[in-house]
Each structure stands twice: as C-alpha cells, then as structure tokens.
C-alpha cells in the first residue's frame, strides 16, 4: 500500500473537519478526491504531506509512519500546493536547482533543460520568476516533479490556472508516476479532467469518504 490511514481525524482548535477516516491507496494508482468547498480536502493533503499533524489517528506512506518517521515519508513524497514555492528573485532554473538540492538531488544542466522544455518554459529559463503569470508558476512547479521523480505525489487542484497544454503535461506526469509504481493523490473540482487519469475517485462529504471506480485501469495490480 502506498498510503494507509487509520482513524485519521482533524480539528482546528475546536472545529472538527473530519473524523475517523480509514482508507488505503495502493501503489500504481491515481486517486482523485472531490468534495464541496470547505470539505477538508486541502487539510487532508496537508496532513499526508506531514505539514499538519492529525488530531488523532495515524497514517503510513509506503510503510513509514507519518508522525514518527516524518523524514522517511518526506523522502518519497512530493506535494504541489496552491503556492508555487518559488523565490521571486531567482530565475526558473535556479529555482529548480535549489528545490532539488533541498531534496538531496543535484540534476545536471541537461536534465534541467529537458524538464523546462517539457513544461514549455524553455525560453524562460533565465527569467526571474517574479512576473511569471499564474499558469507559468504552476508549470514551473510541475518541472520539479519531473526532476524529483517522487514515489508519492500529492496534488492540490493541479489544473487550476493551467491552459490545455498545461493540463496535458500534468496528466502525462501523473501517468508516468503511476506507471513506475508510484501513487498520485489529487484533489480537484474538475471531474472531466480528473476522470482522464484517475483510477479511483473519492468524495469527501460531511467528514465521510466514499469511493468509486472509473474507467481507467491501474497501471499495476493492486498488491
């Protein structure tokens, strides 16, 4: 199992978001989570990314406990959040190199170029990211995933602000992760786009999570 949760619950102070969530997502699967505004999708992702501690319950990522073995979880996980995590005064390439260095990876100049080309930012590799448009920042974040090749990929509304080309690149990256037995967990409101890649979808509603399958077939058998 790529992710397993056990009776996960989260409240902010005294405000309960969800309670007693137990589910598992096998490797090789892309899972898309839907849910109305304020349902707690982002909060769940942030817990899985070890950014927020669950109020109670526990979870494992590729067998590592999410609370006690954070470092191992972080080693295999990557989370693309709403923020693009860019430094405005560095250029696109420098941003990528720094982000990779923080994961202990040191990609070659060529690898950087390939990744930037893949997200169609090749022409902007020496431009400060300060004035990148909303979509260009998202694309640069995608380039990080291409370089880092994480085994577990968490995406919060990945299609936001992306044009059609961007959506295609995203879906291609997702397929690539699942094909090498990785796992993708995304939240989105865009069912059509998600259905193109997700093997399973879930709905978070009143703190309950219900699952359904899509037409896609998991890249690998569920072990």
């Amino acid at each position: 199992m790529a992710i397993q949760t056990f009776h996960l619950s989260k409240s902010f102070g005294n405000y309960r978001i969800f309670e007693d969530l137990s589910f598992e997502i096998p490797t090789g699967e892309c899972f898309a989570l839907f849910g109305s505004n304020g349902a707690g999708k982002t909060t769940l992702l942030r817990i899985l990314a070890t950014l927020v501690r669950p109020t109670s319950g526990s979870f494992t990522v590729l067998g590592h406990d999410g609370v006690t073995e954070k470092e191992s979880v972080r080693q295999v996980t990557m989370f693309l959040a709403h923020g693009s995590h860019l430094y405005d005064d560095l250029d696109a390439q420098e941003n990528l190199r720094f982000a990779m260095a923080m994961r202990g990876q040191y990609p070659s100049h060529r690898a950087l170029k390939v990744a930037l080309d893949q997200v169609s930012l090749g022409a902007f590799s020496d431009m400060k990211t300060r004035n990148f448009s909303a979509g260009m920042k998202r694309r640069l974040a995608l380039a990080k995933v291409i370089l880092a090749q994480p085994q577990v990929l968490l995406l919060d509304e990945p299609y936001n602000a992306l044009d059609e080309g961007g959506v295609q690149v995203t879906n291609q990256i997702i397929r690539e992760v699942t094909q090498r037995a990785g796992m993708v967990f995304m939240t989105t409101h865009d069912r059509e786009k998600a259905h193109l890649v997700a093997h399973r979808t879930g709905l978070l509603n009143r703190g309950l999570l219900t699952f359904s399958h899509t037409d896609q077939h998991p890249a690998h058998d569920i072990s």
Partner: protein
Amino acid sequence: MTFLRVIQWVVWKDLISEMRSRETLSSMLFFALIVILVFSFSFAMDQDAAQQLIAGIIWVSFAFTGIIGLGKSFSAELQNDALEYLQMSPTPKGAIYLGKMLGNLLFMLVVEVMLFPLFVLFFNLNIVEEIGLLLLIFLLATLGLSAVGTLFSALTVQIRAREVMLPVLLLPLAIPVMIAAVESTRGALNAQPLTLYFHWIELLTIFDVIFTVVSFWLFELILDS
C-alpha cells in the same frame, strides 16, 4: 556530505537573491544611516556625553539594523509559501538553520563594517589601534545576535504582528550580548588593557556557543508540524 551541501545551497540562495534585489543590505544600510543621524542629532548639544555613550550608540544601531535584516531573512521565505516547501522536504532542518544563520551573520557583518567608519566620522572617534580586536568583538557579538535572531525570525514569521514580535521577543533576550558588546567595544575604543575587558569577550563566546547549540536544537520544532 548532504548536511554541508544544504548549508551551502541555503547560503547561495540567499546571496543570489540579495545580489539581484539588493533589498536587505540597502534597507539595513539606509535604516542604520537614519538611526545614526537621529542619534548624532540628539547628542549634538552634548559632545562629552556622546563620547561616553558611543559604544552604546554603536550597538543600539547595530542591533536595530540587525533586526531589520533578521526579519527579512524569513519573511523572504513567505513569498509563494516557499517556507512550506522547506518544511515538507527531507532536508535536515538543522542545516537550514545554519545556512540561514550564516547568511544573516554575513549581511549583518557587512553592514557593520560599512557603518563603523561613519561612526568614526560623525562622533570624532580617534582612529582605532586595536582594529583587529574590534572586528573580533563585532564578529562574536553579531554571531550571538544572529544565532538567537535566526531562531526567532523563523518563529515570528509564522505568526501575526511579526515585524514587531521579532524585536519584542529578541531584544530582552539579547541583553547579555548587548552589555558584553558595549563594554568590550568601549574597552577597545578607549585602548584599555585587554585584561580589563577580556571577561566580556569570554562571555560573548560562551553565549555564542550556548545559543547556537540551543537554537540549532529548537529550530526543528519551529519548522515542524
């Protein structure tokens, strides 16, 4: 070793950003300039008192200037939620602390070295003989400030009213550094024999060691969830 490389990259990132925007250094310098002007203005009428208090004035200016730099250090990590990325990366957090701390130390030292001639100029100081010793004192005291300061910069950046909470929390804790720095600077400026103020330099060293270790250890708790 990964640990050292992370330190390197964090320092590199801060230096490059600074070279591009020149934001931190220029604001520190400008702010310091104004503080010095205000001081020299309010002591204009009393040259003797100024001579008496010069070491104190120097360090009050350095401390406030340093706080400007420290505050910027982590608020730069807020752009596009970059701090979040550091938090959820498998980077050793201690290395991030040391990297940020070294960057802050560097910026503060650069500004101090640029400001000191101004003090010499404005307050008619005699040219100092023991300039090497003075630089050592600057280094030790600034190290102490940036050791605690980097920790508190990371702490306050994640709360409301951060520009204010940083000095509010940091200044009281920095009192030993300030006293020791003022006293040893006074000693060096007045060309007193070293033995008279050597214990202050010792105190600075002890403070540096203790608080670098403690902050290094506590930093993880601040970046963590």
